[in-house]
Every structure is written in structure tokens, then in C-alpha cells.
């Protein structure tokens, strides 16, 4: 591999492993719940087209409080979740539902054909695209099996 394509050297940390091993499954689940809830809340606020301050106004809080909520460290009470759900106009339970899959395909296909026999029908192979549906920036949003171009006929 040449220098230009060289990846960073992998480094294994003893102390990191030691401390991570001390995190119990229950502690990890609590962190996961707080962070995914904060991420979901951030997405829902953005989906409404609101900024942090606008949301703070609507829920009668300081923007600094919203920053805390979105930081992934906040331990929400049921009362706060109910207030949030009211403002977002959705059931509380939906705050815990993973975001809808949103696929952003950025695959560009360029087909250059110089001479084409008119009787030939071209189909884009399904398998080519089913493996290409891969969103690098948001890997949870991956849906397989939907070709970008279903079929194409060149004449």
C-alpha cells in the first residue's frame, strides 16, 4: 500500500479495555437510552424546522436547558417527556421509536455506449445496486434491494 493510502496504525489500549470492562450491561443500557433519546429528540426538532431557541420558546425553557437535554447525559422525567411530546404533537412513546429510514443515494452511474445493436435490451443488474445502497454518513439508514435504476432501454 502506498503512503497516500496508508490508514492510521491501530492501537490497543490496556487501560481503556480495563475501564470499559467495568461498565455493566445495565450502565451501558442507561447510556444507550439517554443518547438515543437525545438523538431522536434532536432529529424531531430539526424535522419541525425549529432551532434550539425556537423549541425552547415553545416549551417555555431556556435554550441552555435544551442543550442539556440534547447532550445525551440528561435523565428525563416522565413529566418532561410528556411536555416534549405535547409540543411535538406526538404520543410520548414515539419519542423512543427509531427514526424512519431515510435513504440518500449518491451513486452516479455513467454509461457510455458507442455502438448499440438496436435489438439489444439493456437492464441494469439488480444485484449491482442492492450492494451499493450504503449511506456512508448515516449507516443506520441502509435499505437493501431497491435498485436506483430499475431498467433502462437503449435504442
Amino acid at each position, binding site marked *: 500500500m502506498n*503512503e*497516500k*493510502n*496508508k*490508514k*492510521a*496504525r*491501530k*492501537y*490497543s*489500549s490496556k*487501560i*481503556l*479495555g480495563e*475501564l*470499559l470492562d*467495568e*461498565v455493566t450491561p445495565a*450502565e*451501558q443500557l442507561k*447510556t*444507550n437510552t439517554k*443518547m*438515543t433519546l*437525545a*438523538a431522536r429528540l*434532536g432529529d424531531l426538532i430539526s424535522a419541525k424546522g425549529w432551532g434550539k431557541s425556537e423549541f425552547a420558546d415553545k416549551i417555555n425553557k431556556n435554550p441552555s436547558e435544551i*442543550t*442539556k437535554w*440534547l*447532550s*445525551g*447525559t*440528561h*435523565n428525563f422525567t416522565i413529566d418532561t417527556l410528556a411536555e416534549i411530546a405535547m409540543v411535538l404533537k406526538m404520543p410520548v412513546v414515539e419519542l423512543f421509536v427509531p427514526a424512519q429510514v431515510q435513504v440518500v443515494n449518491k451513486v452516479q452511474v455513467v454509461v457510455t455506449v458507442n455502438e448499440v445493436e438496436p435489438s439489444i435490451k439493456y437492464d441494469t443488474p439488480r444485484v449491482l445496486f442492492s450492494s451499493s445502497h450504503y449511506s*456512508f*454518513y*448515516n*449507516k*443506520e439508514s441502509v435499505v437493501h434491494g431497491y435498485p436506483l435504476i430499475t431498467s433502462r432501454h437503449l435504442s
Partner: protein
Amino acid sequence: VNYEIVELEKYSGIQTTIYSVIMDQEDSTLFDEFLNKYKTDYRTELKSILSRLKEINHTTGAREQFFKHDEGKPGDGVCALYDEPDSKLRLYCIRYGKVAILLGSGGPKPPGIRAWQDDPTLAKEMEKMIEISKDITKRLQSGDIRWSKDGTQLLGNLTFSDNE
């Protein structure tokens, strides 16, 4: 300062690549230094930081909302991971979108100080991160290093030295 950017093997999730740096003449990373220095007095806080980094790495990605920005110079990406409400242990890092972060060191934020400039330990660690960020930006601009096509990996010469 001479140093090398390395990828932390313990965090090999799919959402975010997690890097740190090994300074010249050292065997361990800046992040290891941070963990070793505070493992006795701030063990619970460190475990919380590590479990949050695990979620960033595996589940959520390095979302902007999880980091306190504008800690360094404008636009340098230097930020701090938000503390747990009852913790004051600051971890400084450089965030590159949702897909990559470089962990540095940090320290406890003493009560009564307003900014990192007011505490010598925090100031020292923050200035280190600002310098590293500057070096990386310079190399990205010169093309000596670049991001992989999927934007998650730094590629190229990741060893930095004073006499460049």
C-alpha cells in the same frame, strides 16, 4: 512537537472512527494519559465517558449535540464531550462531522472558573489540541493526508514532526 495519529482498536464500531495521538517518546496515547491520570479519583466519570464514546462509536455517531463547541479557535473543530450533570471532568477532542473524532486529554474543571484559559492543566491540554487541529488542517489542505472516499478514515502520512 512530534506525534502520530493512531486509531483506537477498542472502538471499532461502524458509526465513528475514533483516533488519538501518541506523542514523541511516549508509549501510550494522549487519551490513555488522561485515563491513567484520573482513574483513581474520577473512575466513575471516566467509565461514563467511555460508555458514551461506545454509543457514539456503535449507535449514534458523533452528533454535534453531544459536544460542547467553540472551545478552541473558530472553525478548528476542537470541542469537549459534555459532562454528566454531576461531573466536571472535561475531555477535549477534535470532531470531524459525525464520522470521526480525535480524542485528546483534559482534566477536572475547577469550580469558579469560567473558561479553560483560567486553569493551567486545561489550558495546556486545550492548546495541544488546537495545535494538532492546525497541523491536520494544514496537511489536509496540502493533500499530504486526505479522508477516505466514505469520509471515515484519515489516509496518508499521519506522523507529524516539528521540523516540517
